């Protein structure tokens, strides 16, 4: 497989369970080393650098927050990575406050991470990675176990991170979420990349999504079924769909 992710890009890696999405992203920060070929981060092979060094550049938020939470307080949890990277105490304090604020966790500063709800724990895990301000953020299944409101917040948050110039990679099979974010989509089947390109093109391609066991967004399905009425088949966004449908109604009225 060959893949290049330029700085500042927003990428979603999609595919069915066991397609190799998580395995692929674990190569990005050196948790897994390639048995053949090479993975370069800023031109440096991951084989020649330790995970801890790479982690300074590449923040990786794991799927299950319970796999990383261990401190007595949320504050300590977020400071953990900063201490590992050798930040100074004053800087740590500043970064922790910033991260707590960013993810709406300030009120839980002194709470135990184990007492928080699932969604909150997930946010703590996210904060503990964003706190050191990595230039690349990898999120493994960020939408699992989040209600609609939190998902919407997360979406805005990810888009905002990307606008600040960070490279964002998400691993997911939540099509609706990807359709709303509109990133570059990389589709994987059986450990291989079968397609890469604009979300609009890939998620509306019936044959492609079928081969990767992904159901296209509902709005796309509706438009596919209405193709006889001259509607475009590459719509994935609800707002765009609304515009097209309203235009159509306007024509009919006239």
């Amino acid at each position, binding site marked *: 497989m060959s893949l290049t992710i330029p700085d500042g890009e927003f990428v979603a890696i999609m595919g069915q369970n066991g397609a190799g999405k998580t395995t692929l992203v674990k190569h990005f920060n050196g*948790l897994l080393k390639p048995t053949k070929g090479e993975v370069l981060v800023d031109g440096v092979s991951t084989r020649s650098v330790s*995970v801890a060094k790479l*982690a*300074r550049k590449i923040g990786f938020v794991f799927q299950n927050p319970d*796999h990383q939470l*261990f401190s007595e307080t949320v504050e300590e949890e977020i400071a953990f990575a900063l201490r*590992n990277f050798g930040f100074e105490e004053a800087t740590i304090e500043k970064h922790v406050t910033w991260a707590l604020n960013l993810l709406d966790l300030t009120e839980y500063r002194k709470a135990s991470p184990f007492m928080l709800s699932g969604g909150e724990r997930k946010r703590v895990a996210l904060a503990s990675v964003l706190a050191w301000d990595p230039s690349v953020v990898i999120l493994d299944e960020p939408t699992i176990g989040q209600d609609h409101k939190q998902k919407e917040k997360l979406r805005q948050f990810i888009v905002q991170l990307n606008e600040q110039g960070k490279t964002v990679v998400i691993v997911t099979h939540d099509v609706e979420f990807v359709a709303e974010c509109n990133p570059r989509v990389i589709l994987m089947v059986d450990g291989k990349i079968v397609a890469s390109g604009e979300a609009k093109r890939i998620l509306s391609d019936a044959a492609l999504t079928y081969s990767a066991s992904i159901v296209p967004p509902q709005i796309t399905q509706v438009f596919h079924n209405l193709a006889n009425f001259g509607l475009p088949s590459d719509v994935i966004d609800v707002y765009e769909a609304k515009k097209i449908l309203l235009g159509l109604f306007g024509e009919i009225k006239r």
Partner: protein
Amino acid sequence: MSVFEGFRFRHVTSSIHKLDPRVKFLFVLAIFIIAVLFTEVLPLLILFFLPLPFVFAARVQREWVRSLRGAIFLATIIFVFNFVFGYFYQLQAGAVLLEYSISMSLRFMVLVESFSIFFLTTSPDHLSLALEQSHVPYEFTFAFTTAVRFVPVLAEEAQTIMDAQKARGLELERGNFLKRIRNYIPILIPLIVSAIRRSLELAEAMESRAWGASPKRTNLYTLKMKSGDFVLIVLSILLLTIGLYLRYFVSIPPLSYFLP
């Protein structure tokens, strides 16, 4: 973790896998007893190579070698301890002490290898059947098989947690001895917490599937002895008799006897 690999059951069909687990356990027990009887290298060496035909017949050689490789580290520690403390105790480092230390680690290897064969060729289901038919209360049987079954799950989870903490800049191999131990706290706490959580969930799932509803359980399959089992019983008894005879009626030459 590699020691655990050697105890992980994989479904293979062979004549060894089909043997009654109780009989296999008897065989392992016979080897165990003989291993404890001797402190000389020669009989232990024979004992070490004795189960090899079983390993090949069961086609588990790769896993078996892996479990031995994992045990070598502990065997080395046993050797060093025996040698060093034996030296201070007797104030001599002759051939006798050397042979004794080698035998002690060899004995350990024999124990590991025989139990590894047992677990590699016995499915957890068969094991629980054997325990049940030996009138062990089902609660204990269940707890035991569950523990065996969760070892690989826990090992995998530990790996994920390690990855997650490494991604946050944790370096396990950094610092002095004490610091290195402390480095494992961020790994152990999530592991323990999730193990407790999982056991509570398992208990709830069991309750909702009517665990313990009928006091007398019946099984779809029952274990029956076949001709192969009787052959192994005879073999085990023979082995034990030979071992006891050698121990009490024959003097075993020390290793130095063979040296010029």
